[in-house]
């Protein structure tokens, strides 16, 4: 097991004047045994970052260390890591057993050793009675487990996951999420997990990196990221429905943006006067979309409360201590 250090990481595609920067000077320290999720919208550079750690992409500038070794110039196989791919990348002509054993066979591990390691991994992932099948005879969830099994048998220092759940249906995704958590608890291997799904990020992460346009916006625990977002981007990206960001509100200083989570707005006798646009019932709760002056905002109310109807005027106030202030120009938290 090992820590991962990302030091002044820069990635550019192309060279010279035509170079397109993808990742700008990123620094992060991932501790030994930690489960870190990298989350961001598509094109933010999160997959590129993971692939640089994996050694599948060259690093333009900076250093990547795994344990005490700088791995910039090492081949993927020499980095002592294992990766689970989005499409699993199982070898179609090999059985489940051969798929899991292939890396070990190349590393010249003895056959007896391979048997025990694969058997152990298959036990953990409940693949024992599928070992002789070909990947095409497996369901999506089973393939996913084989991909994880292939990573486990190598007993690596670091696990890398590249959106491994995005090809599963919603139910299986929730279930696999739990399995990955369990696996991490049991093996305690440092893991980097890339996703664009904030629910996955919030539920899996011990700490999460939120990325936008090649910049690390925030690195912290899910609680920190949710409760104290470092920028307006993080505030609007994490949480559903997203945080209300108001440029104009009663009592707001010019040049600032006020952020309030939808669940932190409460109906009141006085306070801000708003007009309801639409109301959505989601079962346990109700989303009220309303206008405050020119600003649009969303309230999340308990479904049992009587909610204002569309077109009506009502009053609401943010809960005390639950408002966030951001710099209007930089978007940074104040």
């Amino acid at each position: 097991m090992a820590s991962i250090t990302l030091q002044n990481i820069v990635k550019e595609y192309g060279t010279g004047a035509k170079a397109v920067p993808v990742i700008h000077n990123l620094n992060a320290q991932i501790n030994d045994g930690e489960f870190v999720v990298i989350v961001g919208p598509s094109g933010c550079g999160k997959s590129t970052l993971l692939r640089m750690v994996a050694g599948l992409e060259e690093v333009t500038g900076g250093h990547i260390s795994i344990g005490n070794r700088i791995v910039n110039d090492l081949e993927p196989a020499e980095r002592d890591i294992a990766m689970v791919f989005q499409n699993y990348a199982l070898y179609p002509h090999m059985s489940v057993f051969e798929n899991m054993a292939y890396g070990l066979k190349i590393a010249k591990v003895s056959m007896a050793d391979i048997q025990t390691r694969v058997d152990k991994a298959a036990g953990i992932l409940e693949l024992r009675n599928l070992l002789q099948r070909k990947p095409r005879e497996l369901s999506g969830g089973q393939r996913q487990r084989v991909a994880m099994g292939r990573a486990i048998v190598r007993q690596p220092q670091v696990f890398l996951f590249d959106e491994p759940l995005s090809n599963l249906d919603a139910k299986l995704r929730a279930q696999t999420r739990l399995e990955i958590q369990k696996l991490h608890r049991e093996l305690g291997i440092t893991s980097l997990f890339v996703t664009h799904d904030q629910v996955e990020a919030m539920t899996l992460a011990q700490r999460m990196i939120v990325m936008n346009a090649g910049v690390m916006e925030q690195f912290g625990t899910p609680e920190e990221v949710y409760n104290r977002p470092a920028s307006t981007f993080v505030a609007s990206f994490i949480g559903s429905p997203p945080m209300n960001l108001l440029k104009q509100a009663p009592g707001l200083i010019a040049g600032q943006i006020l952020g309030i989570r939808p669940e932190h707005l409460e109906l009141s006798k006085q306070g801000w006067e708003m007009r309801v646009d639409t109301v959505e019932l989601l079962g346990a709760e109700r989303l009220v979309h309303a206008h405050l002056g020119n600003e649009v905002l969303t309230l999340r109310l308990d479904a049992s409360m009587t909610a204002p109807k569309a077109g009506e005027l009502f009053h609401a106030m943010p809960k005390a201590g639950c408002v966030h202030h951001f710099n209007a120009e930089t978007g940074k938290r104040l």
Partner: protein
Amino acid sequence: MIERRPGLDLLSHLILLLGVSIVAFPLYLTFVASTQTAEQISRSIPMSMVPGNNFLESYRLALFGGETSLGSKVPAVWPMMQTSLISALVISIGKIAISLLSAFALVYFRFPFRNFFFWMIFITLMLPVEVRISPTYEVVSNLGMLNTYAGLTVPLIASATATFLLRQFFLTVPDELVEAARMDGASPMRFFKDILLPLSATNIAALFVIQFIYGWNQYLWPLLVTTNEDMYPIVMGIKRMLAGEAYTEWNVVMATAILAMLPPALVVILMQKWFVKGLVDTEK
């Protein structure tokens, strides 16, 4: 055409029968002629459509050569078949080996002028052997390869078609598979051997069938580079029987034609399952 009408069924069967008979009739004629004696063929005009009783004699003569009932000498076809078989196998296996490696290089390695090389290979697709036949002959003869298996096969081995086909197939192999193999520590050649080759098995089978027939049917090139009878392939043998003697032994010629058709037909029949699979679907 989901309609069910007996008239339509009848019509389509008629058309199919017509098609089959157009293709099959010459084959049948060849076979019938090979079972008669030379006299029977030349005397009865038109030729009898009923198989004769000279089957064994015709094929014995064709295969092993000898003197016919009319006194003319017939060369043995058996050694020619061996020559044809060896060249066809060398050509098809050589073509596949070279094409696999060059397609592998073109798809998986980044080197200067990669596209230039691809286009050079692609352009040669448009040049059949006949176009470059005189310079090729010059080269082969200067290298002293006339009347050798090398001379018969090497110039035909480089194949733009097979390289192109395999390149297109390799491009459909997902990149993640390459990356997974890299993570597993597989060297490029190891990846080629363990993953790429098994995946292209059906393509290789299809190519083998096509190239075997191509090699077997070569006529013009062997005509140029062989002057020694020991090196004549069977296709040339047929032609020689027609022009050689004053009197043509049609039954032997036809028997030789049937013999020349058998190996390619066998290859197609034996590899049919793989062949169709390779052309139709790619399993990923």
